């Protein structure tokens, strides 16, 4: 289906940004600015709903909804369009990005009340929506990269939004630089993919078949699968493409080793943390990996690395989250940890589960962040949980709604996180892709389970420290009454206005029931009626199947991860891709019972975690935790000592003082002096006397005529011979 409505989704927020930037800055009327910002995103939301849910919409039809605006770059065989496409994957993304984005915009109209940069904030936020939706709806990698950079820019602007906050500017810079490292990988990945598809005879970086362009992903799918070896990374094949793209994803989605920017990014306003650094932008990496699943499934070693990095990040960030005292820092590490989950799912080939978790995470993490924003707002910009406690009775709505988010992230049944996290864990256990050597899936599952336990503990700690226990903010204030003598004491925490609580309530509802769109067969069959797993059925057709995954004990198990890679036979891939028929495959009874057991285990894990957290921190909320965790394993310090400082020293002492000043400047200056001296000499020829000029001309003429005559004599010799 071809429709220009699609471009309205991205251009409405752009228009909002322009209006706020150009008119809002002069009007300076908060109501006007807020209405423009929310309405523009509201338009996107409505259009996205209409285009996904109508009878031939993106979520129902097999063909994507396309909108070709113009051919952007056409150089030789390289072509990139400014074209949008909404298939099932980008449709789901567009839906929750616009919807959650809309709620956060509404929340922000209350949260940012009274800020001097009100118009600036909403202009940036709308611009972010434009960039994010461009990223999601782009029909080729280059346009996706435009959105990718756009969200990076907006993230930079919004982290550094508080111009008077000391840590904001360095945090913004850090986020930008860490993302640049990732972008380097992304761009190289795009180039290499173009090179590979050109070699296959169908040069393209497009995701879909269009007039004049074949889908790069389809081309990749027809290529033989890469081997499972270390050197595949550097061989310049699909594994290299996948690894480079994944480097891009680690930057944007805050994975090891580039995760360090996300905790610092909490210096931005809380709605920004909720929208950009939890719900949408940071999941762009997951989106990109799933979008390019055809590439990843043909690169088993890349899948292996994705799974390992994802699992390691999940565990690593969860342990750090345990020991943080800043409410937003806890949530930031929790986000990193949950993103790690998603990448682990991608790595084992459970792309649908990853996207399911992205969506559920968007609901409950946005809820938690907004809840924390509400707390911070009510506490007059206090973020340290050690100075909170007992807020339950002052902020009942915030407390109740945050409980929903808390239960969701812990994975208590029927709350959203339960279904998605459980699915990831189960898919990890039962994974059998060539990228996952036997035994590794069990280890990954174990890491995931431990992470789930830790998640339940630190989230319970957060809730307990904030909402239960003694009211530590009073004691704190009494102690520091001399220092804070500007009326803080008079304030008690208060509930937030309606504009903030309504989004909280909506998101809490979604965190509670949202997971029902993707109930797995193993659980739904318990009820007898067993409703379909809508989510999986919708998404299954658009992601690539991992070979051997559904077969369980198929060919995949014969691949040992240290054995030489299978050689292609007659140009066909050695490992045949088992194409599952579209639609839900009914698992065997044995699998179902196993899945049910694992579900039970993860519920037990969650309950255990909550009780540990409860009993540890209920009475001793200020309990000291290992210093190593509190200081985040000193990762920032290690990076500073091993990477940043050496670069600075080499740049200053070596490149600047020696190479630039000494070699380059020295060379240039001496060269310049030589040229000038030469010029001065030549200048003396121009003394102004005509006779001298005539002599010079004559001399030149004699030389030339002499040379010609010399050649003429040659001719004469040649002719007379």
């Amino acid at each position, binding site marked *: 289906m071809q429709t220009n409505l699609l471009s309205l989704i991205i251009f409405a927020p752009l228009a909002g940004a322009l209006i706020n930037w150009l008119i809002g800055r002069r009007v300076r009327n908060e109501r006007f600015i807020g209405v423009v910002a929310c309405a523009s995103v509201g338009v996107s939301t409505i259009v996205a709903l209409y285009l996904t849910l109508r009878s031939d919409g993106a979520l129902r039809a097999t063909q994507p909804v396309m909108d070709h605006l113009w051919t952007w770059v056409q150089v030789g065989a390289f072509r990139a369009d400014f074209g949008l496409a909404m298939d099932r994957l980008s449709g789901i993304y567009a839906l929750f990005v616009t919807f959650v984005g809309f709620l956060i915009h509404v929340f922000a109209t209350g949260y940012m009340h009274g800020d001097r940069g009100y118009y600036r904030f909403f202009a940036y936020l709308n611009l972010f929506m434009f960039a994010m939706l461009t990223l999601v709806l782009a029909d080729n990698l280059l346009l996706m990269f435009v959105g990718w950079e756009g969200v990076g820019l907006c993230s930079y602007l919004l982290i550094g939004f508080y111009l008077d906050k000391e840590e904001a500017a360095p945090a913004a810079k850090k986020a930008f630089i860490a993302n640049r490292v990732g972008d380097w990988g992304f761009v190289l990945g795009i180039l290499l993919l173009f090179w590979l598809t050109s070699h296959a005879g169908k040069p393209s970086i497009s995701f879909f078949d269009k007039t004049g362009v074949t889908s790069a992903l389809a081309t990749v799918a027809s290529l033989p699968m890469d081997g499972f070896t270390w050197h595949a990374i550097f061989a310049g094949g699909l594994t290299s493409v996948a690894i480079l793209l994944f480097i891009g994803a680690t930057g944007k989605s805050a994975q090891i080793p580039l995760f360090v920017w996300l905790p610092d990014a909490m210096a931005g306003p809380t709605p920004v943390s909720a929208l950009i650094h939890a719900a949408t932008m940071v999941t762009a990496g997951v989106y990109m990996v799933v979008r390019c699943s055809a590439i990843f499934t043909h690169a088993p070693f890349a899948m292996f690395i994705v799974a390992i990095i994802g699992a390691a990040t999940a565990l690593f960030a969860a342990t750090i989250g345990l020991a943080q005292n800043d409410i937003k820092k806890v949530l930031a590490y929790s986000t990193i940890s949950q993103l790690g989950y998603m990448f682990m799912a991608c790595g084992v080939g459970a792309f649908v589960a990853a996207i399911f978790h992205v969506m559920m995470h968007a609901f409950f993490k946005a809820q938690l962040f907004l809840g924390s924003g509400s707390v911070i707002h009510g506490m007059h910009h206090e973020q340290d949980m050690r100075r909170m406690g007992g807020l339950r009775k002052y902020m009942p709505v915030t407390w109740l709604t945050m409980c929903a988010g808390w239960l969701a992230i812990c994975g208590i049944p029927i709350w959203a996180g339960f279904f998605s996290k459980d699915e990831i864990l189960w898919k990890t256990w039962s994974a059998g892709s060539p990228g996952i050597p036997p035994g590794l899936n069990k280890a990954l599952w174990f890491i995931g389970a431990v992470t789930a336990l830790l998640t339940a503990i630190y989230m319970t700690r957060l809730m307990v420290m904030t909402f239960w226990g003694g009211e530590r903010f009073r004691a704190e204030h009494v102690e520091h009454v001399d220092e804070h003598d500007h009326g803080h004491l008079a304030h008690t925490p208060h509930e937030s206005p309606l504009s903030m609580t309504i989004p909280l309530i909506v998101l809490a509802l979604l965190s509670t029931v949202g997971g029902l769109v993707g109930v797995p067969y193993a659980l739904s069959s318990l009820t007898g009626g067993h409703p379909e797993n809508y989510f999986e059925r919708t998404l299954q057709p658009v992601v690539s199947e991992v070979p051997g995954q559904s077969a369980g004990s198929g060919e995949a198990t014969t691949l040992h991860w240290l054995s030489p890679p299978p050689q292609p036979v007659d140009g066909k891939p050695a490992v045949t891709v088992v194409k599952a028929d579209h639609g839900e495959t009914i698992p065997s009874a044995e699998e179902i019972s196993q899945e049910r057991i694992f579900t039970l285990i993860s519920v037990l894990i969650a309950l255990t975690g909550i009780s540990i957290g409860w009993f540890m921190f209920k009475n001793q909320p200020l309990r000291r935790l290992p210093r190593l965790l509190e200081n985040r394993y000193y990762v920032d310090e290690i990076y500073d000592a091993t990477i940043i400082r050496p670069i600075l020293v080499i740049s200053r002492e070596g490149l600047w003082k020696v190479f630039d000043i000494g070699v380059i400047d020295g060379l240039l200056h001496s060269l310049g002096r030589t040229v000038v001296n030469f010029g001065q000499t*030549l200048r003396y020829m121009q003394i102004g006397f005509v006779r001298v000029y005539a002599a010079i001309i004559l001399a030149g*003429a004699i030389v030339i005529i002499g040379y010609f005559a010399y*050649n003429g004599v040659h001719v004469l010799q040649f002719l007379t011979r």
Partner: protein
Amino acid sequence: MSLIALQATNPDINLTLIAPELIIGIAGVLVMMIDAFARRGQRWLTGGLSIVALIAAGGASIWLGAGWRGARSAFNGMIVLDDLRLSFTLIFVVVSILTILIAAAWIDIEKLPAGEFHALLLFATCGMMLMASAGDLVIVFLGLEILSIATYVMAGFRRTDVRSNESSLKYFILGSFASAFLLYGIALIYGATATATLPGTTNIATIAGRLNHSLYPPLLLAGAAMLLVGFGFKIATAPFHVWTPDVYEGAPTPVTAFMAAGPKAAGFASFMRVFVFGFPIATAAASTAGYTHKSWLGTLAIMAALTMSVGNIVAIVQNNVKRMLAYSSIAHAGYALVGFVAAGAATDAEQRSAALTSVAFYLLTYAVMNMGAFAIVTLIARGNDRRTAVEDYNGIGFLSPVLAFSLSLFLLSLLGMPLTAGFMGKVMVFTTAVRQGYLWLVVIGVLNTAVSAYYYLRLIIVMFFRERNTPWDAPRLPVSVALALVITIAGVFYLGLFPGRVLNAFGAHPSISLSIR
């Protein structure tokens, strides 16, 4: 035998083929008449008439190109019609129109007789057009002399100024010296192309056919060398450039602008016609034709390298803007010569045509940006060309932003910044040279471009970052000069961003492909 008989019986008159030259020539005479009889308000009358005539001539040449029926010649091969001629005719029209616009302000300030100037300019233009359309060495010489005599007078147009007189006289003496070379070269070639049965010839196409039948090849080669010297003087290639700085500095600024863009392009037109088509590349290297080709091509390549380097290096140490632009003009002739060399080395008609087109395009871009720069120099120089030192430009950047920013644009274009005409011109010329294997020449050209950055950017820095110590009274911007600036600025961007149309028009009609023996 048959050729002589044909010439005797059939004069081969075709007036439509010389329509542009006729229009300009008649307009020139008319302007002179008006100047003689109507002395009041003649400035607008003669200027307007001249511009109308130039536009008509441009239209006529476009019409000749539009009604194209293959490359043609008339007057027994004296006049030819091909894209080399058409594209250069258009360049001359543009240059002359811009000169009239720029000169209007100057004529006002200096209280000079406008009619005389316009008549001289039209005659010079007529001469340039003849040089481009000549198919015969005699016509080349005729056009050259029509052009030169008019230019000598124009250079000395400010009669009361010693510098102007000096410029004119130097130009005249050295120009005559060079013309003597040219004429002697023509005579030698006429003698050397005589065969046992036929008398000698000055027709360029016929010369090409007679090369290998020459009875005394050294004479032919010596003639070619003398032609090379004569043309080399006209387009100011090293070492025959020595007259340029003095003449350009002393001549009135609008005349300098004209000389740097127009006569130089005309020189290129006939230079290329005579050498690329008269002494074409030969299939057998060990023949008279082969040696002739080898001699001039090698010499020209070295001259190109020399010209670029001398022009740029000496421009660095100049403290007078006009003199600096004079050296810059020498350097640009060097860049254009690179394309000329490529045209000479091209083995097939298509590549040769592409190279010739690139040179024509280069000279057009140079004409546009150079005229623009000189327009501003004229304005800032004021009466009697008083302010032409670099110090006179100190800190005017934000005092006269229109002038300073336009001049910066032209300087950047002369430097060859991307998105400007100068960049596109260089790209075209260098590309054709690389295609013909003259990589070393292109490397020298690019290095020279880097050198030239110094003096172009220096003027921009002076304008924007130097403190001004002397008072600055901003010159008024007359309508005519403003119009010239609009045309040149638009031209700089148009040629820099969308060169396709002009290139296609210039290369639409490949020149008469000459048989190569």
